[in-house]
Structures are given as C-alpha cells and as structure tokens.
C-alpha cells in the first residue's frame, strides 16, 4: 500500500464535516473522490497532503511522497512557462522539464510569460508541474477546472502514464476522465453528524 488513510475526521471553520474516512491507495491505482459541494473534498485532500492536521485518524505513507495541486496553480505571472516549471523542478531536485512540456502541449508556449496565458493554459502549466516533482502520489483538487475537452484528454493521458509508471493519484473531480481503472469513492456517507470539533466540546 502506498498511501493508507484510516478513520480520518476533518473540520472546516470549527465544524466537523467528514469522519471515519478510510481508504487505501496502491501503486498504479487511481482514486476519485465524489460528493456534493461543501462535503469536504478540499479539506480532506489538504489533510492528506499534510497542509492541515486532521482532527482524528491517521494518514500513512504521505510524508515526502505527495505532489499536491490545489485550486490555485502557484504560477508567477512575470516568469515564463519554462522558468516556472524549472523552478519547481529544482525545488524538487530534478532538472528535466521537457516531458512535462510535451505531455501538456506547452512546447509552443514555452517562452511566454505565465501572466499572458489563458485560464486553461495556466491550468495546464499548473498540472505540468506535477510531472517535474518526481513524487509518486498525485493529490489533485478539481484538476480539470477551465480545461477544454482536448486538454482534459491530455490530462487523463498524463495520469494514465503516471499510473503505468507505478505512480498513483488521488483526486476530487466531477468530470469523468475515462479512467476506467479508477476507483470511485463517494464521500456523502462519511458526512459527520452535526457536532462541533472535539476541541470546542470542552465549552459545551
């Protein structure tokens, strides 16, 4: 098992939103999280990525293995496409950015400033960043926002390549990527019973 989540409970704004979430992710596997808006997909992913301590439960195998892509791409408008990618590559100790440029069809845009890209192009660049991290587990929060059909196909292909190479992916998305091998987990049953965080319970 590459990543294993046990009995996770997360809170947002002082309210428990999800509890008892457990799943495993093996190498070469993809897991798609579903659920209505506000069910806690983003919060769950942030907890898995280690950005937010979970209220309860454990995440094992995440340490230094995760490449996280959230709602914002972390791009610098005043840097070119290659400069943006090269920066993230060297942060993660890699240098080769060509495969990422090719996979997301960015080769023609390589010298453009990131600030001049369209929303979809920016998103593609943000996703290309995942490939230069060299990390095995991709944690993706709504990766297909502002992507057109062709770009979604590019992205699905990139994920498939990543899985074939022994990587794995955990993503929250509404769009069917055509990843037949992906397991779908609906988060609705894990919705927490109305209560406040255990921290606040001392006050009640």
């Amino acid at each position, binding site marked *: 098992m590459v990543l294993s989540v046990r009995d996770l409970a997360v809170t947002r704004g*002082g*309210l428990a939103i999800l509890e008892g979430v457990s799943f495993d992710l093996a190498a070469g596997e993809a897991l798609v999280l579903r659920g209505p808006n506000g069910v806690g997909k983003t919060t769950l992913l942030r907890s898995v990525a280690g950005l937010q301590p979970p209220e309860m439960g454990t995440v094992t195998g995440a340490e230094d293995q995760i490449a996280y892509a959230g709602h914002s791409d972390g791009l610098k408008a005043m840097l070119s496409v290659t400069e943006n990618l090269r920066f993230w590559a060297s942060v993660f100790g890699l240098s080769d950015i060509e495969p990422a440029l090719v996979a997301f069809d960015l080769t023609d845009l390589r010298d453009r400033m990131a600030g001049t890209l369209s929303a979809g192009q920016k998103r593609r660049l943000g996703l290309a960043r995942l490939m230069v991290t060299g990390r095995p587990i991709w944690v993706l929060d709504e990766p297909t926002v502002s992507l057109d059909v062709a770009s979604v196909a590019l992205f699905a292909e990139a994920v498939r390549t990543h899985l074939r190479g022994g990587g794995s992916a955990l993503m929250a998305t509404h769009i069917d990527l055509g990843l037949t091998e992906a397991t779908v987990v609906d988060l609705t049953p894990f919705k927490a019973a*109305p209560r406040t965080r255990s921290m606040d319970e001392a006050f009640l």
Partner: protein
Amino acid sequence: MSLWEYANPVKFIRTTDKVLPWIWTLTVLCLVTGLIWGFFFTPNDFRQGSTVKIIYIHVPSALMAINAWLMMLVASLIWIVRRHHVSALAARAAAPVGAVMTMIALATGAFWGQPMWGTWWAWDPRLTSFLILFLFYLGYMALWEAIENDDTAADLTSILCLVGSVFAVLSRYAVNFWNQGLHQGATLSLDKEENISDVFWFPLLVCIAGFVLLFIALVFLRTQTEIRARRTRALLAREGQA
C-alpha cells in the same frame, strides 16, 4: 486532583464564581484602606511635598503593567505546551488590563513628573520602556482581534507574546544604553539600604496588594466572559449545522 483540572472551562467558571466575590471584597478593602491611608494619613515628603502621594497609584500600576505581561507569557507557554483553552483565553483577557495599567503608570508618571522634573514627558529609559511595552500590548490585542479562527489566533498570539517578550527585554537594555535618565532608581528593593521609610512603605504595600487583587479579579471576570463568548459561538455553530 491537579492544578490542570481548572483548565476545564466549566470547572474554571464554577470555581472562579465561588472565589470572585471574596476577591472583589478584598480588592475594595485593600484599595480603599491603602489609598485613604496613603493620601490622608502620611506626612508630605520633605522635598517633593504632597506630590509624592501619587506613588500609591503610580508604583502599583507600573508593577502590574509588567506582571500582566509576565502572566500572559506564562499563559501563552501553557497554551503552546499543553493546549488548555482557558490558558489562551486568560492571556487574551489579561492584555487590555495590562495595557490600561501601563497607561495609568504613564499618566500618573506624567502628572508626577510635571511638578518634579518640570516636564510632562522625558525620553527617560523607564518612561520609554513603558511606552514600548504599551505598543507591545496594542500589537498583541490587535492580532487577537484580526484573526477569525480562535485556535489560530491563540497560536499566533502566543508566539508573538514569546518573541515580543524577548524583544521587550532587548528594548529595555537598548533604551538604557541609549539614554541615562531622570527617573529615580527602584524605590522598592529588599537589599538596598536606601529604601523609602516605613511610613510610606506600609500603605504602599496595601495598595500594591489591592492592585494585584484587582488584576486577578478582572482577569477572572474577563476570562469568564471569553469562555462564555466562545461557548456561544460553539453552540451557534452546532445549531447552524444541524
């Protein structure tokens, strides 16, 4: 049975509710006795005349200005190490009290300084240090107000309190280095020969006790309020979710 049991908000409110009337009574008793004794039944100083009597407010408030910060520092440490909510809320409750004490010390100092030194304000090390301490209080309170999430605010203000304490001490030394001042040395110390005479000393002690008790009473009261506000928010959040 340990001290940490009082870190439970409910237990804290129950206990303080029991002791608060006693503390208030003692506070009023000490302050009334100390101030009347000090103001009306002590002789005038042979050099300073009747202005010396402001000492009965000036010295206790100055002491409490510093002790309040120390109390906040201890409470912040307890929050960081043991994560007791009452401790963080007590630190929050103490800050405005400490700030007001600092302001009283500065104001009474100015009223005293005017007839004695001929000036309301001088950039004397002690005065300057207190002004800087006041700024630290302001920043600490502003940070509490600015952050919406209670626990985040508690974490950030605790760290600010720790870092601020180090810088407050540094500033104290820096200011001493920068200007040797007008202010007399410490009036109260145990090892010095040259202490103030007993006639002034006893009423001053009673006043100091009164200010300490006043501080404790106010902090207890304000911590209770903070706990109740926090409880209201928790209840409302639960209602909203249901």
